[in-house]
């Protein structure tokens, strides 16, 4: 379903980014990068005291003619950005939420690994396989 999945650290550098290797992936990288501004905007709009109430799922960040970009932020300001093909109209909001939840779970699993240093690139095979399962349906 997803065309590109990215995990961005709190300091806005990518921990993990992977896209469907069909076109120039740089375009997806750029889209993810630009979406960070939207994410920050949404986070700041929530207010500072409402961190607990703030919902993790941000929803559609911005649509382009071909793709839609969805965002998700954890409580530790780690962002998940997902680019989805617009032609996939059957993709509903619930499914996007479930995909983000899976991402979050996998991310926590990676975090739980004592051999993983926070801030490192995510090289977990499990995480990769999970992301592949999310992206494999596109092809």
């Amino acid at each position, binding site marked *: 379903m997803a065309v590109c999945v990215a995990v961005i650290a709190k300091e806005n550098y990518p921990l993990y980014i992977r896209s469907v290797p069909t076109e120039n992936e740089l375009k997806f990288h750029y889209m993810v990068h630009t979406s960070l501004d939207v994410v920050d905007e949404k986070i700041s709009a929530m207010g500072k005291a409402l961190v607990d109430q703030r*919902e*993790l*799922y941000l929803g559609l960040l911005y649509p382009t003619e071909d793709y839609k970009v969805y965002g998700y932020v954890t409580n530790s300001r780690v962002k998940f950005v997902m680019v989805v093909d617009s032609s996939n109209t059957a993709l509903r*909001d*619930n499914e996007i*939420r*479930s995909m983000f*939840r*899976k991402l979050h*779970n*996998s991310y926590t*699993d990676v975090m*739980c*690994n*004592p*051999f*993983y240093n926070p801030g490192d690139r995510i*090289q*977990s*095979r*499990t*995480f990769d*396989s*999970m992301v592949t*399962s999310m992206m494999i349906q596109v092809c």
Partner: protein
Amino acid sequence: MEGLTLSDAEQKYYADLFSYCDIDSTKKVAANGRVLELFRAAQLPHDVVLQIMELCGATRLGYFGRSQFYIALKLVAVAQSGFPLRVESINTVKDLPLPRFVASKNEQESRHAASYSSDSENQGSYSGVIPPPPGRGQVKKGSISHDTVQPRTSADQQEPASPVVSPQQSPPTSPHTWRKHGRHPSGGNNERPLAGPGPFWSPFGEAQSVPSAGDAVWSGHSPPPPQENWVSFADTPPTSALLTMHPASVQDQTTVRTVASATTANEIRRQSSSYDDPWKITDEQRQYYVNQFKTIQPDLNGFIPGSAAKEFFTKSKLPILELSHIWELSDFDKDGALTLDEFCAAFHLVVARKNGYDLPEKLPESLMPKLIDLEDSADVGDQPGEVGYSGSPAEAPPSKSPSMPSLNQTWPELNQSSEQWETFSERSSSSQTLTQFDSNIAPADPDTAIVHPVPIRMTPSKIHMQEMELKRAGSDHTNPTSPLLVKTSDLTEENKINSSVKFASGNTVADGYSSSDSFTSDPEQIGNNVTRQRSHSGTSPDNTAPPPPPPRPQPSHSRSSSLDMNRTFPVTTGQQQAGVVAHPPAVPPRPQPSQAPGPVVHRPVDADGLMTHTSTSPQQIPEQPNFADFSQFEVFAASNVNEEQDDEAEKHPEVLTVEKASDSAGSLRVAKTESKIEEKTAAGAPANVSKGTTPLAPPPKPVRRRLKSEDELRPEVDEHTQKTGVLAAVLASQPSIPRSVGKDKKAIQASIRRNKETNTVLARLNSELQQQLKDVLEERISLEVQLEQLRPFSHL
């Protein structure tokens, strides 16, 4: 050459050797060089080799074809067996062992020989050569070990008996214990060569059932050296040290041959049972793991925190990435800590990795943590059967550690379903799921929304009906009917007529509607109401009163409705014509109910009826005293009635046109125009009266003009008005027409009477004036006569 019969083992062996010699891949010719090497490896005297070559026919041919090669091999076996070399010996010698080739250079040959022999012949001559180890990097070491081993075995190969032992010794290594131990870190080095094994060991194991002693000897090696090495591993396991331990390990093997057979028995048993599971943890291994666990965490039921585990496993000098992966695999419950089982699994994976085994993508079945703590379990085979299930599920079930130990072997099944369940549990637990539900509900809203409109429509049906009533009531006041009512307010009876008509039409609302439709002025509005009502009745089967019968045909079909009204109001049949119900003013007078009830009743026939009426009217008129006194007109036809005839002519077509038009509104308008006509005729009458001797033309003219103007103003259904006007004018001269039906009718009749009176008055006037004219003319004549009489006298 005699035909060569080969056993299966021989066939395989020979084919393999042939392919080995077939360096050019011709599949037909074995390279001479290779063949010679092979023969040399057979360690046969040179002359024997030559003899073999002659016998197989290669010398004749100059090359080794497949058949020649096979024959040669057979001869080699014969020679090695000590049989005399003869052509006949190829097939005569029974139970010939496979040719032996010392493979100092080519391990494969020996291996192949060993493998083939092990398969078929249980002589143990060359039982089980170690197949190339699966792990990378193993081959080399394996080969090295082979080399180290081979010298020993080769020495033994000279004796037919020794091969029985040596091959056992060389691989033996292979006892599965070795194999397993081979995966152990340090200790594994000496077992590397043997570590290759895997499934190949099974037949070997079986073959070795006899020479168990040797196995025992060898197998006995396993525990101590590994332990020694493990210790070293635990402290500082440099990889280089592991490699250097090769020769040492070999030495150990040779030296340490005294081992309790008890362990061997276990191992043998395990060998046979678990040969196909390279990831099984042996008891010794497990014991070692447990000990290690204790060093970190004394409580065996407790956890090792992630940090401690990290330190421990970092000692293995494996790359962090691999350690991370091992962690992912082994931390089954994803809690960041290792239980005993998890720790053992992790340790085992580290050992395997150390030995060059690739880390699996998923946790192997045998390494999965047992749910029931089976520390002392010798039944390694009781592992939960979940090979396919990944030990590191992306979606870890929420109920992890607390329930895990308590869960039975149903855990894997739960795992299978946990993925399904997990979504539910997630939904139930996380707040986000609520939104999911909400959003799930949201799509359902359209459905409910779809449902809603129906009940929404249903509920107001009554309201609509009430509204309709109100509207009708209002329309009664606002619609043109109101002007009717207002204008005919002086005739209060009209209202009563309306209401009576309404009520008389029916008890049901619909009937009231339908009846009122015909009554009310605006058929369109009524039609709308009716249609609305119909729709409501259709959609609200229950809420409203028993759904009214489908409203009668729309009031647009005024005639049909009026038909109904006719049926409902038989009283007014006499006066009912096209569309006219309560106000059939003009028309009714003409068709007398007594005389023309038939044509009157049927609406569709109305036109015809009226046509007949019109056609017969001139005829009937004189017959019917109620009708306009056309006789009077006929009297004046020659003189003044031209216009009246025109009027009649005009009025007749007007009447006809009226018949064709819709009626219901016409009734109103008829009533309207009646009133107006009354006024106008009244106005006209006095005007005429006032004019006195004015010609009779003017009076009818103004009326006609007004009628026409009215027609212009209300072209729709002013035909009725025209009708009424015509009839009013026609009937004006008539004496009072007996009218007993409806106030409107009385009013019309009254107006007719008046018109008739004025007509008579005018007619008398006319006659008088005519007489006066005659008198005057007579006087003139007389005067002229007198004048003429007097003139002759005047002319004188």
